[in-house]
């Protein structure tokens, strides 16, 4: 591997969108990577190439195109298995994204395993997609949803977990490996160890983790694991649900339809092998192929290098932002415990107004509740501004952000 610094400087040219300008010829500074990332030519072209050369439905047909399409589709499954270190490709299910993955678990596992009085435990810093499905499920079943609290440093209070586990009623503990608001990296090993000791299953929302650091499922030992392609250079519309085989075998089908069946008779049907039992209907073939190209791209860079690059940016950003009078940063300042996501507030200026003014300078920053209203309530704020980094961001991007914040200060007379 060549020098890391030059790798990251060079790769910007792979991203055509970074060459464009916005708002009266301003350089685009894209800092909303926790929401979705930009795509390199390698990914964009792999999708066009699929449609131009071997588009076909998969699995069932015998003709040449179908053979090529099926091979490319299934090859991505293998790439994913390698990327997150999974031995058994049958455990990998393609879904639209993390949201569908978690809902699939809530329906296909939850509805047959959760009963009245059971407890599902989540955390105060979850994304809505790891809260609402469990609200729906627990309401339907007369079960309870409980929360692991968060301290003021943005760390989970694991005593809460111990308390719930002690009831003997917990059936599932579900948490994000990295908060999409605070960037906190959850101590998954500790949580999973406690859960395993109590015979409780664990689900990891890895939407923010897989794109930004090396993840090894052999070591993690969770039972469900979900992430989205579009947050890691891949196309929109594709994501992954991984489920441990022994758990997957206890799950009912989710969607009924083509490809997930073995035999259909008028009044009953039998199911296809794993993972196809959970992939009903024509899948998002082109984007699975594109996702494969994204994984190739990240593999070539190396996930440890990705993490290192982001640590450097995050350190720099926290330093620079802290110098701006009136900026309050949420979460821990211990870089080893956080990813490249920084939420802040700027004096009494509403984050929307911050976002709008910096947008005028070409800087794309997110404002709002970030689909984490429970966390907003916990932080006692209506909203925050958020910047989040990826491989193509530079220190210049952060300097531009800080400059634009000075403009906010001027407008709002801070």
């Amino acid at each position, binding site marked *: 591997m060549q020098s890391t610094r030059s790798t990251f400087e060079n790769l910007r040219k792979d991203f055509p969108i970074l060459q464009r300008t916005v*708002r009266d010829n301003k350089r685009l500074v894209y800092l909303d990577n926790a929401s979705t990332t930009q795509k390199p030519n390698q990914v964009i072209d792999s999708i066009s190439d699929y449609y131009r050369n071997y588009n076909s439905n998969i699995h069932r047909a015998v003709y040449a195109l179908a053979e090529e399409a099926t091979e490319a589709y299934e090859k991505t499954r293998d790439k994913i298995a390698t990327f997150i270190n999974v031995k058994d490709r049958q455990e990998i299910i393609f879904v639209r994204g993390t949201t569908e993955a978690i809902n699939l678990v809530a329906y296909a596992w939850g509805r047959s395993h959760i009963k009245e009085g059971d407890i599902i435990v989540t955390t105060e810093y979850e994304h809505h997609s790891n809260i609402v499905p469990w609200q729906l499920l627990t309401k339907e079943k007369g079960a309870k949803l409980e929360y692991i609290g968060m301290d003021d440093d943005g760390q989970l209070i694991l005593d809460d977990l111990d308390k719930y586990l002690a009831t003997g009623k917990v059936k599932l503990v579900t948490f994000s490996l990295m908060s999409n608001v605070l960037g906190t990296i959850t101590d998954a090993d500790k949580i999973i160890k406690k859960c395993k000791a109590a015979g409780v299953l664990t689900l990891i929302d890895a939407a923010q983790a897989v794109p930004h650091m090396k993840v090894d499922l052999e070591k993690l030992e969770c039972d469900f694991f979900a992430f989205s392609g579009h947050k890691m250079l891949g196309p929109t519309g594709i994501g992954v649900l991984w489920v441990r085989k022994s758990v997957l075998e206890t799950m009912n089908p989710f969607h009924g339809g083509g490809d997930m069946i073995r035999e259909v008779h008028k009044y009953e049907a039998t199911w296809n092998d794993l993972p196809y039992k959970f992939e009903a209907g024509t899948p998002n073939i082109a984007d699975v192929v594109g996702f494969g190209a994204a994984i190739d791209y990240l593999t070539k860079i190396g996930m440890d290098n990705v993490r290192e690059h982001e640590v450097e940016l995050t350190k720099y950003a926290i330093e620079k932002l802290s110098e701006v009078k009136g900026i309050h940063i949420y979460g821990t300042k211990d870089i080893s415990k956080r990813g490249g996501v920084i939420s802040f507030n700027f004096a009494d200026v509403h984050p929307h107004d911050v976002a709008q003014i910096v947008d005028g300078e070409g800087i794309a920053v997110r404002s709002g509740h970030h689909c984490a209203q429970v966390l907003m309530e916990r932080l006692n704020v*209506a*909203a925050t501004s958020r910047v989040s980094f990826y491989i193509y961001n530079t220190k210049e991007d952060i300097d531009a952000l800080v400059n634009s914040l000075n403009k906010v200060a001027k407008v709002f007379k801070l």
Partner: protein
Amino acid sequence: MSGNADIYHEMIVDYSRNPTNYETEDQRKLEDSFFKNTDVIFHDSNPLCGDSIDIGLKIDDNKVTDIKFSGKGCAICMACSSVLTEITKGKSLDDVRKIEKNDILSELGLEQLQAVRIKCALLSLKVLKSALYTYLAKHLDDSQDVDKLKEDAASLY
């Protein structure tokens, strides 16, 4: 599109810091809170950004004799809510029904606001119209009329 910061002229910044006809959460807890003494209150929020507005009305003889809002929102939302309450106060219900989005936007020079921010600007108008149809539904027999008002509110943005 011109520079986004242009939107934030003095008036908007001022309103955002000092909204008119506004009650804070703390004030609402007091014994003599306006919101404890209204003829109708309506609440709505913007699912995209979390802005959240309550409007309370006192109505007498088919007139809005008093109005206040409370809640959280960006500068655009706070300024527009302030202007809206100013416009509304003292108007007959019929005239309140006739308030249109441009009455608010033009007052603050926000006609060119982009789609996603329009929702910030008009949330309070939506809440006001909803408050009105809630009131009328109780006090009016003409359900068709109320439905029209409801549609009106729904189609704002």
